[in-house]
């Protein structure tokens, strides 16, 4: 029987060897794959145990934090209102949005501003404490922006035109990020789309604010003498489109600066059409053959190029995804479309952030600042990691000289023309209004304003849009003024 016993032992041993190999297979070889499956409850368990990092504004004011609950868990709360879109929400069921999503790795502690401390904590089974994320936003400016919108659908973007730091980004209507789990269906199905961040996810017809870019192209290409007067009265006809001078009916003769300040559609339609020529012909009454007839393709190409230099129709690098918008849809260029595009209508579409950047570029000597809203991640121990966009600038859109000329034109608009409601005592303001026709025929236009202050040494740039509110002069412009005033009071670079 000895031999039989030895054989039995061999069989049993073989069984245990197979078991040992299977343990190695599941615990080591297939470990990562099994843990990544949705059947693993540890992912949610661990997330629940993490002390999620706070989100702070530039002054250290708490925008989002975890508050311990009586049952031992902790609940994400948002003590400062009006920031739902940019700060975002954090929900176990519906995921994250905004900064909560973008910097979830830092907030949840899977990445840390202090990697050494994180490793030690993991080894010692200390509860994971996420890093705080410090934003460039200022809650006070944000509040001014929310107040100025007054609940009207629309958006406000305020940024530092030199550094690109976003100081405020408001979108209306808004939602309560603390109520995501409770009111998700209502929020998703609300026809007003409260979850959409209109500042970066909605594209709008920019209206006359786009004239900044058309003017930039003409001046940068040296096609026009900004001080040369020309007669500008009679409407012109392009295809079936009639473009008139009703915006400055009291001024029969203007120079390019005044045409800009008074937002003359006729002048800018001609500017767009003639961008491909050597010299703009803006004087009165033109009959065929029109000077642009053989240059249409070149004009359109130049307008597109300059729009692109201001990141219209391009993917703008930012902490959160920005809709690219467009200069034109899928079709071909034709004269009336180019004319309309040049004064800000046509098929143009841009986000409020892109338009704020256009104003900032003018204020910043023609360089487009790289926008960013997340400043740094700060570990519990105090170590920090910069989350800043490393570029600083996204490139020179136009020459500093051109920028200076447009700066003067925008100041002229605030001092003397349609942007007057933005004027402040003791501070020179540059600005451009826009009244963008959008939506169904006959519906109230979008009210736009883009600008900056102080004009000599700009500290803040702004874009305001109020959907279907009326003229830019009457609504967006005074709103922008109050926001900029508040920003100049509280913001030091």
């Amino acid at each position: 029987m000895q031999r039989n016993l030895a054989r039995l032992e061999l069989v049993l041993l073989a069984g245990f060897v197979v078991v040992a190999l299977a343990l190695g297979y599941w615990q080591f070889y297939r470990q990562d794959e099994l843990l990544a499956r949705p059947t693993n409850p540890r992912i949610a368990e661990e997330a629940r145990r993490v002390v999620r990092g706070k989100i702070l504004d530039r002054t250290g004011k708490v925008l989002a934090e975890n508050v311990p609950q009586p049952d031992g868990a902790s609940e994400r709360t948002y003590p400062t209102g009006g920031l739902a879109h940019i700060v975002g929400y954090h929900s176990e069921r519906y995921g994250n949005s905004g900064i909560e999503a973008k910097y979830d790795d830092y907030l949840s502690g899977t990445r840390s501003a202090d990697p050494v401390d994180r490793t030690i904590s993991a080894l010692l089974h200390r509860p994971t404490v996420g890093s705080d994320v410090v934003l460039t936003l200022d809650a006070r400016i944000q509040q001014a922006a929310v107040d100025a919108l007054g609940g009207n659908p629309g958006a406000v973007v305020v940024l530092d035109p030199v550094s690109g730091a976003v100081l405020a980004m408001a979108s209306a209507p808004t939602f309560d990020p603390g109520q995501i789990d409770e009111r998700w269906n209502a929020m998703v199905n609300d026809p007003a789309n409260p979850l959409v961040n209109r500042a970066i996810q909605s594209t709008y017809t920019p209206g006359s604010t786009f004239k900044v870019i058309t003017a930039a192209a003409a001046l940068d290409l040296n096609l026009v003498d900004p001080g040369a007067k020309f007669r500008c009265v009679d409407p012109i006809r392009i295809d079936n489109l009639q473009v008139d001078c009703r915006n400055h009916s009291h001024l029969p003769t203007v120079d390019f600066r005044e045409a800009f300040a008074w937002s003359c559609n006729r002048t800018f339609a001609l500017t767009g059409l003639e961008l491909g020529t050597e010299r703009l012909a803006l004087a009165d009454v033109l009959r065929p053959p029109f000077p642009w007839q053989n240059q249409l393709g070149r004009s359109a190409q130049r307008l597109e190029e300059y729009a692109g230099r201001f990141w219209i129709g391009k993917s703008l690098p930012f902490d959160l995804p920005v809709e690219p918008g467009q200069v034109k849809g899928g079709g071909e260029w034709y004269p009336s479309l180019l004319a309309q595009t040049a004064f800000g209508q046509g098929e143009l579409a841009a986000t409020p952030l892109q338009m704020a950047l256009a104003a900032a570029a003018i204020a910043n000597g023609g360089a487009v600042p790289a926008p960013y809203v997340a400043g740094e991640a700060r570990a519990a121990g105090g170590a920090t990691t910069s989350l800043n966009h490393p570029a600083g600038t996204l490139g020179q859109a136009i020459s500093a000289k051109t920028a200076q000329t447009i700066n003067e034109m925008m100041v002229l608009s605030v001092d003397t023309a349609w942007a007057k409601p933005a004027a402040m005592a003791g501070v020179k303001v540059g600005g451009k209004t826009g009244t963008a026709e959008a939506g169904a025929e006959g519906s109230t236009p979008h009210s736009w304003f883009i600008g900056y202050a102080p004009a000599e040494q700009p500290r803040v740039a702004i874009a305001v849009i109020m959907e279907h509110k009326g003229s830019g002069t009457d609504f967006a412009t005074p709103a922008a003024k109050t926001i900029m005033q508040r920003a100049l009071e509280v913001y030091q670079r």
Partner: protein
Amino acid sequence: MRPWSIGGARPRWLELALLACPILLLAIGLTTIELSSGEAPGSSDQALVAALASALFAVHCWLTLRYPHADQVVLPTASMLAALSMVMVARLEPSLALRQAMWIGVGSVALLATLVILPSVSWLRQYRYTWAALGLALVLSTFVFGVDPNGSGARLWLGFGGVYFQPSEILKILLVVFFAAYLDDYRELLTLSSVRVGPISLPPLPYLTPLLFMLAIALGTVVMQRDLGAALLLFGLFLAMLFVATGRVLYVVGSLAIFVLGADLLYRLFSVVKIRVETWQDPWATASTTGYQLVQGLTALAAGGLIGAGLTYGYPTYVPAVHTDFMIAAIGEELGLAGSLAVVGLYVVLVHRGLRIAMVTGDSFATLLAAGLTSVVGIQALVILGGTLKLIPLTGVTLPLLSYGGSSVLANYVLLGLLLAVSAEPRRRDDAA
């Protein structure tokens, strides 16, 4: 006689030294659990450690006095598993920790009682049919008095006075004794003679009849009660003992053929068997229903990795029955591959020592008895580990000496007592001679 011996006593230094390991394991384990909850280790932990130490010391002393030549590795190895069991139950189901400790205490008493009461190993052999009848009576009584205290759907328990136990746990030991005695009687006949049918030589089937009859009743009963794990264990045990007794591969092949036919029949007859097989093939397809336990068990093992999350730092309680059948998942998650392999290593040591006892005992009944007892532990461990690791379809049996559960603990300690008694047998015979 040497000067330090008292009567027939001889010191068992190896066992005494090795017994420090389970006591240390229990002390460290319980302290770790307390510290991780942020509390100072309480006096109840010290009492548990002291209780285990004194129980082991008592058994050790009795062995030293009465069975000085008994194997010195079996008790410490089994005690390691018992200590780990107490630690893991305290970690997984703190409310059951004291009960498990109590059961291990009762088990130690049963082990001692076995050693004290048992006149000699051959005494077991004399009453072979009594054991068989007792086993049958136990199993059959579950049909009449069987209860289902924890709602598992199978009436596998007998209960009186609020205490429940699983007769199949006792049955396996009674069957080992009966098989050993019967096979010892007819070993030569079964090995040598054969009935020739043409070119094939068949075993003398008539001599196997009582054995097969007993097996059929036992198997039939547990299968009727859907206790498939016990059925698999009893069948494996029968096969192992038959092979040890006869060494005839034909028996093994024939039995396996019958097993395949029987398994196929069960697969067709019982939906529960079909579900088990389908779950085994792809547990993730039903990860929230029938595959839940297996999937969560494997996920817990994966979560442990090489060194584990650390005691109390994993989430093993997501696995159903983790403190009983799926104990290895909790050990794998919190103590890692290192811990789970250590458990496998302990079983290997136990099986190796058990079969060594069988080899050296010198008496053919004792050999078969020791081989059978060892096989019970080895096969039962393989059945549940294989099921947990998706090597074979999952059938519910306890992980010997590790799982929480009174009857399982009790039966395994009686089994250890018998094994130790067998290991001491040759020298006792010599001393008596």
